């Protein structure tokens, strides 16, 4: 999408969210469309919403689902809180690190995957667990991880 088209589209979207007084959802929508919040987008959102650039930047950096750097097309979020730790979440992290040759926080060279370590995702009954984009995957084993990643 060209920059001009994008900013036009953002303007249209903005009206809808402003009516609901819903800045965070608007930012999430922009994030979804662009994959991350670039400095340009942060400026755009700030001017559309009539708030300071600092406010939008502060908001973006506060929440772990928002990023100011490009993410992979698929974001893998591995839970490392206590219940998943007990069920060997380190195995999950290592399996993905090896498979993609990336470290937590990194993006694969082809831009297809990001790996992030996150706090409890509320799937402790299925530990170890991870989210890929919005899908939940639990009771992970090296073999199961392999199959899931192949299917993406």
């Amino acid at each position, binding site marked *: 999408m060209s920059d001009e088209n994008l900013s036009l589209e953002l303007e249209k979207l903005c009206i809808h969210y402003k009516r609901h007084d819903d*800045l965070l*959802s608007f930012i999430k929508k922009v994030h979804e469309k662009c994959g991350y919040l670039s400095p340009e987008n942060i400026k755009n959102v700030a001017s559309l919403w009539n708030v300071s650039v600092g406010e939008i930047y502060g*908001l973006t950096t*506060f929440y772990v689902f928002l990023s100011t750097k490009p993410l992979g097309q698929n974001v893998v979020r591995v839970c490392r809180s*206590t*219940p998943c730790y*007990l069920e060997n979440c380190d195995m999950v992290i290592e399996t993905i690190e090896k498979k993609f040759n990336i470290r937590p926080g990194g993006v694969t060279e082809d831009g297809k995957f990001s790996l992030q370590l996150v706090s*409890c995702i*509320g799937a*402790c009954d299925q530990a170890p667990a991870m989210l890929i984009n919005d899908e939940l995957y639990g009771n992970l084993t090296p073999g199961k991880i392999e199959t899931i990643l192949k299917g993406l």
Partner: protein
Amino acid sequence: MPEKRIVLENCGVIDPSDINTYLSRDGFKALEKARKHMTPQQVINEVKRSGLRGRGGAGFPTGLKWELCTKSPEKERFVICNADEGEVGTFKDRYIIQNDPFGIIEGIALAGYAIGASKGYIYLRAEYHYLRDLLENAIEQAKTKGFLGEKNNESFGIEVREGAGAYVCGEETALMESIEGKRGEARYRPPFPPEHGLWQKPTSINNVETLANIPHIIFRGAEWFSQIGTQQSKGTKVFSVSGDVEKPGIYELPMGTPLRELVEELAQAKDLKAAQVGGASGRLIPEEKLDTPLAFETVLGAGAVIVFSKGRNIIQVVRRNIEFFAEESCGKCVPCREGTQVMSDILRRFSLGQGTKEDLTILEELSNAMMLASLCGLGQAAPNSVSDSLLYFRSEYDT
């Protein structure tokens, strides 16, 4: 005491995508009863008499919270359903939403009626985005049937708002900041939400499970409800059990049930060393204290129970807890922001066998300072497992 299903009564029985299956089990009867035969104050009185207390962990009396909202001269009021279930080891709200979204909606509508709210919000954590369609669909169906929205002169509506990944947003004032489109930093209190809540309007913010109890209380009455449980904790509690157990999952039990029954009989823990009740911020209960009843007056939190078997190193577990808080601290107040970092460093040293006696003293002092001086519940409760481990498992810190 065997399992007792009130909140989970419909779970696995109804089809969460079809309101008719909920209606066939007396669904929305409580709301009809309230709107037709009870004044808002009568609804509040019923909830007060039931003894229901907040299921998010803090245990504030729900009826009282509602009543405080109605004391404000401000006419625009809000109800928020806190579905930002972020406490480590807790997944009961996920289960309730997945299996009975209508019960929550009816509870929110009843809360709205009681306090005179114009609108309800469900704040859903981003990690539960996959539940959003289910919730929106349930709201839509409730609207079509005339329980919400414009039909029947009913103007009360419910909107789903989603977080963006921040544990602290489960804290009520941080959550409201987030809905307002700000960083989810806790507010200084007072004023409390029933006076100045969302957009500074009177707001009742209640946990998913709390609201899911409401239709049952209104439909069957406060007397019935208050016969279940203990002196200070009425009704049941939904527990999320994880860790070293054969059967991790969701269990609903009357308040006051001994912890042993939950973890050993139901979840089938073997060779238990300790259980942490209330998530990362919860209390560490050693095996010898397993007969402790689960209730607000003893130990409860939001009902997360993480079990550790004998082979587990307690320092590693506590370290993982503190690393979580260091990551999730919003950074607004010094005791929490710095305290969690320093604790995390010290616990790392202990787990490498390099901790000193001086480190132990600092851990103890820091725990007290953070409990006393942190701005919100996150920092106040973060040191719990540290101080409990020093009390019950001090030998593991041997220097």
